[in-house]
């Protein structure tokens, strides 16, 4: 990655231009041609630096609720548990963490009862009883772009 790559990443993380020719807009801003910016972005995708370019929506404003779940899963059950949990389309993030509550996943759905039902299903099909449901009560900060230096 060179300087121009880093400048592009910092620009398009915060705000990808919502305009007819986004790569021309970026080119004008960073003193490059439209083609050069487009090829660089393509390369950053191919090299696995950029995961996606898209929207992050407010679940709340779309009438969805979300929560963070933590499960205490015995080692011999982890594989099966993760397989079951990851099948739910409402599970968007799942991490193996260094704690006795070792599997942490986020659940999003149109209502909390649906999530509770899904957690109940997971308990029944995996035999893992200890699952915490930790919905957020207040947000103090959400920042999703980082300055790349």
């Amino acid at each position, binding site marked *: 990655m060179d300087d121009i790559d880093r400048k592009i*990443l910092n620009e*398009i*993380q915060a*705000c990808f231009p*919502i*305009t*007819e*020719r*986004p790569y021309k807009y970026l080119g004008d801003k960073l003193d490059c041609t*439209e083609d050069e910016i*487009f090829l660089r*972005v*393509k390369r950053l995708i191919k*090299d*696995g*630096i*950029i*995961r*996606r*370019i*898209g*929207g*992050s*929506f407010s679940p709340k404003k*779309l009438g*969805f609720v*979300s929560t*963070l779940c933590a499960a205490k899963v015995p080692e011999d059950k982890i594989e099966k548990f*993760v397989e079951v949990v990851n099948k739910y*389309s409402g*599970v*968007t*993030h*799942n*991490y*193996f*963490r*260094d*704690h006795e*509550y070792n*599997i*942490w*996943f986020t659940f*999003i759905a149109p209502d909390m009862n649906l999530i509770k039902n899904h957690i109940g299903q997971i308990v029944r099909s995996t035999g893992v009883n200890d699952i*915490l*449901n*930790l*919905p*957020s*009560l207040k*947000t*103090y*900060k*959400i*920042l*999703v*772009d*980082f300055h*790349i*230096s």
Partner: protein
Amino acid sequence: MVDELEKKIIHHLQDTIPFTERPFADIATKIGISEKELIKRIKELKEKGILRRFGATLYHQRAGVKTNVMVAWNVPENIVDEVGALMAGFEEISHCYKRKIQGDWKYNLFTMIHSNNKKDFKKVLDKIIETTGMKDYIMLSTLKELKKVSPTYY
């Protein structure tokens, strides 16, 4: 709430837009509206706060942000807003939420702390402890990513 056209637009933006030179023209064709109309509607979604951010999501480790650790804090209820605001002021903290406690789980304030290495992480953590006076915390380091997808709304 959103109308049927907005649902179609969200459907095309919630994952990734096409990697083409004219992505909005391509999406507009799929939906059957003009590119101008699509751009106008996306900007409206942004103004209404329904679209929080429209941009690139990176694989952070490969982009140079090396460590991210979730740290959960046990903060007395009467000062949680004050401590939450202090935590939010740290540039190394990307997410900060108050969460419901339950069962044997007493940690109510969740933070995501980003740093370039373990040494930097320790420095940031020390600084947070010094600033907030909070000492009862638990570190939840990621050992492995098991799933990461964008939510599918429509």
